[in-house]
């Protein structure tokens, strides 16, 4: 073997080891959570309300709460994020104002989630008088998710070849028809990836819902969007820190259910992506 090949081998080995190093913590975390929590996950745990100071029973209201919050977040952040990204990429003129908006969007994704929580509390809970409610929590999580959704959508739109737009326009399509038929269909996989990533993060956040929606203990299901709900990440925080003599396996089981929920969302997006890829024949 010559020197160049040896150097190549060494480089590949290092790259491989680094990749392994990155995957390792994820595998260990999941392994640890499964090992400690799997025993406590049962049908009863998933389908019943907590009892006896949350030390017994299940986490059904928290699961429903998190699902409701994800749906609420999606309802607000998807149209807002995707439409504004379409505007930024396809319509906005390249001037100082547009560049300022783009810069702000990128910077917004770096703001700590607790700041979003405080902002949501001030604006939605107090000023707009929504109270601690599903509406206020969903809006807060939606605002937090927007930067990632906008950025992902922007990149997905920009990756569609310019020639597709040129073909469509040259055939007499209007700009909106071009976007609708010739750009969006090819950017949906990218938009989906970014959206699900962002919603997964929203599902697991505690800080933004702390002041805006989350209930400490509320063993019933919400009746309206102005109700409070329990949510998995906040419930996990509560039972891990606020309740004495809490069996540790219940905390891990709650974490496991949260991971499972996020995994399910990703699964749906993978299936949708595959479906769209198959429909479009590259």
């Amino acid at each position, binding site marked *: 073997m010559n020197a160049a090949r040896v150097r190549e081998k060494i480089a590949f080995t290092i790259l491989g080891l680094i990749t392994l190093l990155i995957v390792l913590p994820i595998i260990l975390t999941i392994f640890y959570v499964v090992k400690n929590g799997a025993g406590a996950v049962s049908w009863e745990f998933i389908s019943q309300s907590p009892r006896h100071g949350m030390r017994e029973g299940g986490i059904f209201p928290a699961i429903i709460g998190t699902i409701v919050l994800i749906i609420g977040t999606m309802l607000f952040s998807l149209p807002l994020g995707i439409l504004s990204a379409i505007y930024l990429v396809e319509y906005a003129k390249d001037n100082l104002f547009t560049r300022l908006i783009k810069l702000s969007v990128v910077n917004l994704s770096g703001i700590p989630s607790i700041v979003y929580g405080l902002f949501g509390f001030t604006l939605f809970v107090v000023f707009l008088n929504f109270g601690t409610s599903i509406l206020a929590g969903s809006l807060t999580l939606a605002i937090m998710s927007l930067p990632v959704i906008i950025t992902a959508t922007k990149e997905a739109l920009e990756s569609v070849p310019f020639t597709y737009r*040129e073909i469509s326009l040259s055939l007499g399509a209007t700009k909106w028809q071009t976007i609708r038929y010739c750009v969006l269909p090819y950017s949906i996989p990218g938009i989906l990836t970014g959206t699900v990533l962002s919603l997964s993060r929203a599902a697991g956040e505690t800080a933004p819902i702390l002041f805006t929606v989350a209930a400490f203990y509320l063993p019933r299901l919400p009746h309206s969007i102005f109700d409070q709900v329990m949510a998995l990440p906040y419930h996990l925080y509560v039972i891990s820190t606020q309740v004495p003599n809490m069996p540790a396996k219940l905390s891990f089981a709650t974490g496991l259910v949260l991971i499972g929920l996020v995994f399910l969302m990703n699964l749906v997006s993978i299936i949708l992506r595959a479906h769209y890829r198959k429909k479009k024949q590259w």
Partner: protein
Amino acid sequence: MVADAVIKTVNLKCAFGETTAVTNLNIEIRANEILGIIGPSNSGKTTFLRALNRLNYLNMSYRQSGDIIFEGKDIKQISDNILRKKIGIIFALPQVLPISIFENVAYGPKVHGVKDKSKTAEMVETALKKAYLWDEVKDRLEMSAMRLSGGQQQRLCIARTLAVEPDVILYDEPCSGLDPISTAKVEDAMRELKKDYTQILVTNNTKQAARVSERCGFFLMGDLVEIEETETMFTNPKDQRTDDYITGRFG
């Protein structure tokens, strides 16, 4: 002659940023003719062509002055999508969309509001027949257009433009990536289309212009040096520069 000019440009100047592409163009295009445009690279041929259906404006740095009159109307007064419906274009490289053959051709009718399925199917069939592609693809219309050969893709592009039912078809070096047999098929299609359409063919291949066009214009550095019946231009050009170019002494 002025009366039956489909397209007329008046003192047309085109520039991209600081770079002038077309200097001062006055040209008239007659109904149902095939006008060949020849000239070396960077002579403004393509810019002239894309000015006619305002495609140049997709480039943000594009500036234009002078008038283009289409069917007696200044094109500034026609909205882009109507203008481009009437003046279709075939690009240099075959550019098909990554959808089926049928969907590619049906794209135009779809955006122009044809909803009826049997009407669409009929339009697709007519367009593919006119572009000499029907026999080759009629059994596999649902196949991805990306899997056709280059020559077939270019004829598919012609069919796609025809399905929009334009009055004028612009060709921007349509055969530059094609083999001689595919080229011959595209040229056959052009001759057949002469009955119903006005066609402008920009080409780097002087022989192609001689074969297909009836009149021919020679562009050089943004100027129209000469426009003449093709026969006259290739046998007895007025300008020395035209003579040099078509006999291959420069360019």
